[in-house]
């Protein structure tokens, strides 16, 4: 038992890995990256910055918001002016999410601003469902320039260190408020190993970084004459040029180990993704073939089982059926209708038991249901000629009898109408049906070879059903879904294999033929087996076969017996036999159907015995 549990646990872990890992391989490229990041900065004379950031996203598997981190240093204030996003090929202006502006559809272009200590988090909401998305953000940063006694400093981070994805083509253009000597402009670029900084002219500096990977960052720093920002607040009137240059020398000489590590990690990650993509492709191809192969194999197993079951040719039916093997009415119902119509089985069995002398039958007139057949157990002690299910039914009749000792089918209906009674009735039904299966199973024993096929079919079918649920979802392949119906069909077929054995098929054909002949009145009483020629027994079999509308033969059999009950049954003009059967059948069928929705709990029903009284 412990070993089974261990195997089950390991299987579960493997299957959850399949869900967790394989889709991860399948979707390896869906993490978005930034394909272009253009930044235009204009430094104003008052030390503020006018910035326009234009960001293009690619490999966008779909997103409803994007985030932009705007660097905010101590003493600075960031003022978002406009946010645009691309939609249907053109830019639209986004509305800020704030009170009073709720008329716009949030996913058609809005943004929110979250102020943090060292950054402003700008979230743009929209339907970024296409491959390409773009936003443009215009904002102003107040008091962004540090003005010292000898120099002014511009220092900003445009790609933060903790940015999780790759950023490509970063182009930053910074314009100074006025012209100056190019030798007095000193640009610095931090955070990347590859990048270019150029003084473009007397008032423009550009930075170009081909790409950054997670772990790298883009920090720009420009030193320029402090008189270019005459209206800027003085940060410190001491000289800072020397110390800043020294800082830059130190940065230049540093090992930049972190950046190297980040590049290395990114290369490894790219390699892993490429490998994962290849593996995913292979896994999908293999899984497609496996799914198709497994489905074909299941169909082959189904074919083999069918072949194994039907190696005898169909034989013609005899004209008379006197040698028909005896099955109880409940078993007959199981053969011809797979157990459907429990009321018929029930009533047929009662009438069969009455024909054997275990029950007495009478007619009771009821206002609400019309006349019904009612039953009473006789004093007969032995159970000769009764099946297990019929013996159980006999106990049932005794348990449900009224004060006068009669069992009325309408009592079942009353029980089915209450929660407790319905539960009890369901339990009785389940046990009774189990016994019918047992009775029939004894006659329809599977050969060892068929037991092997049944178990093979069950195992293969069940496994295929489970794989049919997992593989197409985990690997996103159509072919995998084929395993679902094939697996389930094989599973069900194997489970109900007894219905398809030679014995089962023969019984099915024979009883169907008898039904046809009874309906067409194409059989005489003498051509029926002796155990069926009794009026009540024939009535019971007619009911389970569904031929109760053609009662001519039954009436003949009842007349032959010539007892008082039989006369009552066939000579009552107010309540003809057909109506009597119809009423009783309606009540029993209704009562037994009503309780079929109660969940089966086999643990509770195993060995359920009736409490008498």
């Amino acid at each position, binding site marked *: 038992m412990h070993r089974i549990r261990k195997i089950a646990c390991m299987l579960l872990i493997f299957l959850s890995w399949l869900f967790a890992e394989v889709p991860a391989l399948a979707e390896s490229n869906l993490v978005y990256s930034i394909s272009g990041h253009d930044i235009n900065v204009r430094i104003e004379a008052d030390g503020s910055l006018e910035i326009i950031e234009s960001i293009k996203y690619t490999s966008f*598997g779909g997103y409803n918001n994007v985030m932009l981190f705007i660097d905010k240093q101590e003493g600075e204030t960031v003022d978002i002016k406009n946010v645009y996003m691309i939609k249907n090929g053109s830019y639209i202006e986004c509305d800020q999410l704030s009170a009073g502006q709720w008329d716009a559809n949030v996913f058609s272009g809005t943004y929110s601003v979250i102020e943090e200590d060292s950054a402003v988090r700008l979230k743009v909401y929209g339907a970024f469902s296409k491959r390409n998305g773009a936003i443009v953000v215009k904002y102003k940063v107040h008091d962004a320039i540090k003005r010292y006694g000898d120099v002014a400093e511009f220092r900003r981070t445009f790609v933060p260190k903790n940015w999780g994805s790759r950023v490509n083509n970063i182009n930053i253009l910074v314009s100074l408020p006025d012209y100056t000597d190019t030798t007095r402009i000193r640009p610095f670029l931090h955070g990347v190993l590859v990048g270019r900084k150029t003084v473009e002219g007397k008032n423009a500096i550009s930075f170009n970084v081909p790409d950054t990977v997670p772990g790298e960052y883009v920090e720009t720093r420009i030193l320029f004459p402090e008189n270019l920002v005459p209206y800027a607040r003085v940060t410190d009137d001491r000289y800072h040029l020397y110390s800043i240059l020294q800082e830059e020398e130190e940065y230049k000489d540093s090992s930049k180990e972190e950046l190297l590590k980040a590049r290395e990690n990114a290369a490894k990650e790219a390699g892993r993704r490429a490998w994962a993509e290849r593996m995913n492709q292979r896994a999908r191809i293999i899984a497609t073939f496996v799914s198709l192969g497994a489905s074909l194999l299941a169909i082959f197993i189904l074919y083999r089982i069918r072949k194994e079951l039907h190696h005898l040719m169909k034989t013609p039916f005899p004209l008379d059926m006197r040698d028909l093997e005896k099955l109880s009415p409940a078993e007959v119902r199981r053969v011809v209708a797979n157990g459907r119509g429990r009321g018929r089985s029930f009533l047929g069995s009662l009438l069969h038991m009455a024909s054997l002398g275990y029950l007495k039958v009478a007619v009771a007139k009821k206002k609400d249901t019309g006349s019904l057949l009612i039953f009473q157990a006789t004093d007969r002690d032995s159970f000769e000629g009764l099946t297990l299910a019929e013996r159980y039914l006999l106990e049932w009749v005794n348990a449900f009898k009224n004060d006068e000792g009669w069992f009325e089918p309408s009592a079942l209906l009353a029980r089915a*109408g209450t929660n407790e009674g319905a539960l009890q009735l369901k339990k009785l039904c389940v046990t009774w049906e189990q016994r019918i299966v047992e009775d029939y199973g004894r006659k329809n024993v599977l050969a060892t070879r068929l037991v092997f096929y049944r178990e093979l079919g069950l195992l293969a079918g069940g496994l295929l059903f489970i794989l049919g649920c997992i593989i197409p979802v985990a690997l996103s392949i159509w072919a995998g879904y084929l395993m679902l119906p094939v697996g*389930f069909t094989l599973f069900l077929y194997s489970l109900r294999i007894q219905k398809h054995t030679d014995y089962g098929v023969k019984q099915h054909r024979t009883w169907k033929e008898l039904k046809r002949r009874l309906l067409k009145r194409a059989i005489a009483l003498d051509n029926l087996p002796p155990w069926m020629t009794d009026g009540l027994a024939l009535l019971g079999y007619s009911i389970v076969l569904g031929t109760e509308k053609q009662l001519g033969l039954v009436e003949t059999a009842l007349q032959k017996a010539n007892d008082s009950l039989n006369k009552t049954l066939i000579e009552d003009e107010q309540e003809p036999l057909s109506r009597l059967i119809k009423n009783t059948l309606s009540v029993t069928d209704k009562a037994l159907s009503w*309780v079929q929705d109660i969940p089966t709990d086999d643990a509770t029903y195993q060995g359920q015995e009736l409490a008498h009284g």
Partner: protein
Amino acid sequence: MGLTAGCGLLLFKRQPKRLWLIVFAELAMICHFILTYVIFANGTEAAGTDGLIYHQVAKDVARQLWSGTPLWAVKYEYTWYTVMVGIQYALFGVNRFAASFVNSFLAVLSGYLLTDIALKLNYSFKKAAFIGNVYLFIPSMLVWTTDTRKESLSFFISILLWYLALRIVKEREWSVIKQGLCIGLVCVLLYVSTLLRIYMLFTLGGGLLVGLFFHYLKTKRSVIAVFGVTVLIACIALTFTMVLTNLNDYHALPMDRSQGGDEDLDDELESIIKTIIEKDIPRAVNGFLTRPHLEEVDNITDISGNYAAVTIVRIEQVLWYICMILAIFGFLNTLLEWDPYLLGLIAFIVSYTLINALISENVADTYYRYRAAIIAPMLLFADYRPVIRNLKTMLMGKS
């Protein structure tokens, strides 16, 4: 919390071991409270996405109510849930914490109802309480039902609807009036669900109809026929009066009118069909059922960089995969037993999965949030033992 305990005592008055269930429910409430304070640590006017939007709209609704606008004339955006919160704000003052606490209460109540559904399906108390507790403590459920999002109400209505359906089909001693009232309430819940999410009519209504159809075939009870016909009429009426009229302006559907894409209903339907055709269906189903994949979790904007949250979501994802695998056995068992109620639930799960996979954006966190609606019904299937027990019983009688 008192109300939570009271509801628990009332609902499980016949269960001797109910105390533990209620203790866990209270614990879940406390978790919700803590989470509420964590989410709103930086103030209630900045935290969240949808929750923040609904909160702002609800404030506007409350302002309209204060200015004397009658309830039926109130203008609201996005979802009817904002009106609910707006009414609460109008009555008790604007307080996002209070609105979140109401959501927490509804989530716990949903957990109770789920437990009771399991009990009424004849599951043992241990198993039913386990299902209820998993629902209460699963991290995504805690998160989605804590903020001022509509998920909590949406899940509650969905579970309540299935709970009522089960009661109607199970209870044989109810009077006709009580049955009629409950059937009416189910129709009202269908209406409210449609107000909250337009496609819920088809998933819930469809699931119910499938369940009731098989139920009627199996039992032939007239009350089931009446129930089924009423639900069918309600579905048809709601389709024409609500779904088709509101389809154009429904914000969660692609290319709606507000995006300047389509002008009329035909175009809207055409765009939906086009979206579906363009999708790689197996991949979309994979996305809905399995995303965010483990390596995607740290890309979810709301938790990105939060190591603890990322780890919790990853653990939850693994547990969800295990739950799905176990549920396959439950599905197999349902098909074997042909249990109409559970067949209805399967129809609900399948239709909800397909609709969301085909229409929703291919976004991991959207899938993650939308998928939360099927966690509760999936938990009812996640057990491999019944199918093995049933097979054993079936085979024992046949060998």
